[in-house]
């Protein structure tokens, strides 16, 4: 499990939406391999029937009254958008 191939690293980089060069893929394969090998030590522990902790507080669902509230106005929302047109966010072509 600990060994990561360059192909696996490229697949993970794609899932993470990171462009990656051949050299980087090689470097990350080694580094991630070392970290996952280190993480193998958790297998020493028997965790049968141990509940996972996602969160330390005893919270279940936090609900509020379903009351409409005013959001931010469009001009404010668009303040940091680099490319926009007619109050809309603009992106490059989705399909080739």
């Amino acid at each position: 499990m600990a060994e990561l191939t360059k192909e696996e690293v490229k697949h993970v980089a794609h899932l993470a939406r990171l462009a990656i060069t051949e050299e980087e893929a090689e470097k990350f394969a080694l580094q991630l391999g070392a970290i996952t090998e280190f993480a193998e030590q958790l297998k020493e522990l028997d965790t049968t029937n141990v509940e996972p902790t996602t969160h330390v507080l005893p919270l279940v669902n936090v609900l509020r009254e379903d009351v409409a509230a005013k959001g931010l106005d469009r001009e404010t929302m668009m303040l940091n958008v680099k490319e926009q047109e007619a109050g809309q966010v603009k992106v490059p072509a989705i399909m080739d």
Partner: protein
Amino acid sequence: MTLFERSAKELQELVHSKEVSIADLTKEAFDRVEKLDGDVEAFLALNKEKATATAAELDEVPFEERGPLFGLPIGVKDNIVTEGLETTCASKILKGFNPIYDATVVKKLREAGMVTIGKLNMDEFAMGSSNENSAYKTTKNPWALDRVPGGSSGASAAAVAAGEVPFSLGSDTGGSIRQPAAYCGVVGMKPTYGRVSRSGLVAFASSLDQIGPITRNVEDNALLLEAISGVDPLDSTSADVEVPNFAAALTGDIKGLRIAVPKEYLGEGVGEAARESVHAALKVLESLGATWEEVSLPHSKYALATYYILSSSEASSNLSRFDGIRYGFRAENVENLMDLYKQTRAQGFGDEVKRRIMLGTYSLSAGTYDAYYKKAQQVRTLIKEDYDKVLAEYDVIIGPTAPTPAFKIGEIVEDPLTMYANDILTIPINLAGVPAISIPCGFENGMPLGLQIIGNYFDESTIYRVAHAYEQATDFHKQTPQIWEGK
């Protein structure tokens, strides 16, 4: 010397007797930044114009309407959003980002009448423990400019230690408030998970992150924590529990206090000076009526692997929002939308951030989820239970905050035992979610050492009471770095 060698209480006395105004205090902060920040390099952005205008307005408010922190200057870590003041998380991917709202803690600072001086450097997205991972600059330790201030809230600790500001906010995911506080000889508190709203804190690992105060003494720290605490409708993980008057807990009385000292905290890799400073502190606490016993937190050795998997998994999800479309850096000359995402993220994130995103994505992907992510969550339960058991029998847990004082900039800590000790002293506390403080407890070759005091869930009051009693009996917190002299 500076006005900021004084406590909040002493500063308020000066203001009330009209010896100084809030405008003077604000000016003092910017003067100190002017004099010292060329060396320390703590600030990424300054709020001079607005802060100066705010100070003049605050000076008009009648004394009887002012609280204990009214008019006092504060620096804010750059992963806490501030409306209209650039917030970058020390990352290139957020260069130029101008937040459109204030974090809940920033609103609370304003309600308390505090004046935000500027934004403080950090390791990129809070990933690192030296501030060397900032995309902009490396903050220096005010006690020795060739050494790191710690991290990730390194500049938050350095700015307070340098007397540029008397208060700052940091955030702590695996030790990021406590370790820099120890390295810089100041007081840093990581509150109980849920004590302080995370709304407006740029998320790294949501189940571990917590904002907390950094100050030069315990009482100021207690005052600032009270000001920023409380349940918040904008953070569903903020806890609906009473916010006590923490400063009222500073009675000086710790008779009968039961202290646990985990043997794992004083094991291999912890330096002789750090070990001795803890034993000396225990003697001080004993002389004040406390008792201590050695205990064990047997799952400590698994904390680092658990932390790396869980924090990276959460980070890979949280950092997916940085795609170049709605804010921050956007790559140019791209072919299509997918290419825009990939190029923006590849050019915008630093190496350490990429590594953790990759590790997290891998841990969460099909085929590895059960072996890594779920397993780590189960081990987290075992680590939390270690703390629950000890804290059922003892009032506080005490140990060093870090195994050594601050290391040199560029120096790679190669001794694996020291690296290991570095992590097990702070990381398990975030996994368990309990509160912990670091306070000054000695020096090694002129560099500060930190004492860590850990308490039960939502019992920051006891931590403050112990920290304050210790502080009153010692004078480590009164010492200032040489950089103060003549400035």
